[in-house]
């Protein structure tokens, strides 16, 4: 396919999905608020923790502060994988407040959550990461969605706890755009990602279909797709806010995303029949295929932009070694009407920027977000495509050629090459 045809196809898909999302949103604008709890269910919050000394105390206190009938809520902290810091010692101090603190030798969030799943009799099971903090009214806003017996999971709006540097500011915008999309997916019955940091599940689903997949490095994605595969619903409470400590360093962010995207790849392969089937409505026919298409053309766009960037660097290099001022190259930019060129690509690109701004401000308004967004939005607009493409290219590379990767207490060795070698040696 020639590049221009590719660009047109990509633009067409992007425009179509963007419009479908906006139409869906405007059609359901009066259904944005949460339905309210009819009868308070019993709730179990589990906080798995591995080397979480800096944040574990605040997370436990945040869970304790949630506004919910005290006789209907239990909180578990599961230190796992033999943390090397004081996570367990700090958590133990909260036993006097009724928090159940457990230490498991075996590492992994999935193991920790499955352990509690066997212990609890609560109707709602909530996973909460040890660096996550919730608003007091979070459960009152989320749990009303379980009034519908078909709803098996409810996701809140995730936000960045602090926005100190560019990395966190960009993630804050990404989370807000994600909040809009998740609400639209909710209306389309197509939520395929719930935040691993805080999601509420109906416990009976686990009783029927088993606990978390401990072999999967993103057990939350696997669980979400499993719920979709069994034809149940996943809801989103856009007005319920949960805050997570987002990575400050680009390096930490990189490895977080490599883990997430490796998880997406593996779960997508596992549930390919759900993701690309007309039986699964919008998820199978529109959302999943366009999500994959968007990854492909973001990588393609990245390659083109990097190619152009390299050409410019070469021009600047030659200009420099010729003894001239590289700023001369700026003289090429002409702004008179003769040099103005309108094409369908620029026309749709402007439209895409408007649509993405609209999505962002809708999410900001409905999730009552007060954070300053200007620097973050600028960084997001200019850099996100590069970050997104690098994360995806790296994840695909590791899925094909990677050796062993360690994520927290979990070891991943599931690349195609290492699996092939394993099979060959047998």
């Amino acid at each position: 396919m020639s590049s221009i045809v590719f660009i047109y196809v990509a633009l067409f898909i992007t425009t179509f999905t963007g419009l479908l999302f906006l139409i869906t949103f405007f059609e359901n604008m009066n259904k944005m608020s949460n339905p309210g709890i009819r009868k308070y269910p019993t709730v179990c919050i589990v906080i798995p923790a591995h080397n979480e000394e800096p944040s574990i105390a605040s997370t436990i206190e945040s869970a304790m502060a949630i506004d919910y009938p005290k006789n209907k809520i239990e909180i578990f902290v599961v230190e796992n994988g033999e943390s090397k810091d004081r996570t367990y010692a700090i958590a133990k101090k909260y036993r006097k407040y009724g928090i159940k603190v457990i230490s498991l030798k075996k590492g992994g969030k999935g193991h920790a959550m499955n352990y509690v799943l066997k212990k609890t009799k609560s109707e709602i099971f909530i996973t909460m990461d040890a660096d996550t903090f919730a608003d007091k009214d979070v459960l009152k806003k989320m749990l009303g969605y379980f009034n519908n017996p078909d709803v098996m999971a409810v996701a809140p709006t995730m936000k960045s706890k602090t926005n100190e540097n560019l990395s966190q500011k960009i993630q804050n915008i990404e989370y807000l755009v994600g909040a809009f999309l998740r609400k639209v997916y909710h209306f389309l019955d197509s939520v395929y990602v719930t935040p691993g940091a805080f999601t509420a599940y109906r416990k009976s689903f686990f009783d029927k279909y088993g606990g978390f997949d401990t072999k999967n490095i993103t057990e939350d994605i696997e669980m979400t797709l499993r719920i979709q595969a069994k034809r149940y619903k996943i809801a989103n409470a856009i007005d319920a806010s949960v805050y997570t400590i987002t990575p400050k360093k680009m390096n930490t962010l990189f490895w977080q995303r490599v883990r997430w995207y490796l998880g997406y790849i593996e779960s997508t392969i596992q549930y390919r029949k759900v993701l690309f089937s007309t039986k699964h409505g919008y998820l199978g026919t529109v959302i999943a295929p366009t999500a994959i298409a968007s990854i492909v053309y973001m990588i393609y766009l990245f390659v083109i932009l990097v190619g152009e960037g390299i050409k410019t660097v070469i021009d600047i290099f030659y200009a420099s070694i010729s003894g001239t001022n590289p700023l001369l190259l700026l003289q090429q930019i002409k702004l008179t009407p003769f040099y103005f060129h309108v094409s369908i690509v620029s026309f749709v690109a402007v439209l895409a920027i408007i649509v993405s701004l609209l999505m962002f401000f809708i999410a900001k308004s409905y999730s009552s977000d007060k954070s300053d967004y200007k620097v973050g939005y600028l960084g997001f607009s200019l850099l996100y495509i590069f970050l997104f493409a690098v994360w995806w290219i790296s994840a695909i590379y590791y899925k094909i050629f990677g050796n062993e990767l360690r994520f927290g207490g979990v070891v991943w060795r599931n690349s195609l090459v290492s699996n092939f070698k394993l099979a060959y040696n047998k």
Partner: protein
Amino acid sequence: MAKGKSKVVAALSLTILIFLSGFVLGNLSVSSKLGLVQDLQNEIYTESLGFEVLFDMVETNLCDESSLGDINYHLTDFGERLSYLEEKGDEQEAVKILKNQYNALEIKHFLLINKINNECGTKYSTILYFYGPKSECRTCLTQGLELSNVKSDNHDIMIYSFDYTSGFAPVRNLINTYEIERVPALVIDGIKYEGYFTESKISGLIDSN
């Protein structure tokens, strides 16, 4: 489900509408650009006639410089617009014809200036600039910009740019006359200089001549 389908149909229809509008706008832009190419061609044609008249005037009143300034301005403007069209890569054939016409105009102007210098005792400096395509001459882009700066500092310097790979006979004739072997190359007041020259170096060379 019917409601769901109508949503998809609405999104699809709007997308098609946006794409059609984009195509219409894009085509309008291209046609206006084609119009601009056409305009430029007409302008160059008219200016050529102007040059013919100027040449006629040489016999009667060559040293009256009043009409020269306006023609110099137009020649520079044509040059800039042509390089933009060349870079855009649209309508290559039309642009190639334009380029030959423009080169012919440049050479006529160059000869006229030489004649004025000889007969009227003026000292207009002339620079013939030979450049190559980006793939063969990475420094040509900035060399052109250096020359633009030289020109903007001193309007009495006449700069004429020629594509080294041009097949146009008068241009090939110039290349052979000055024995140009590599680009970028400059012929400043009749003396050949090959390689890259910064604005200050070029000014120095003009002064030394």
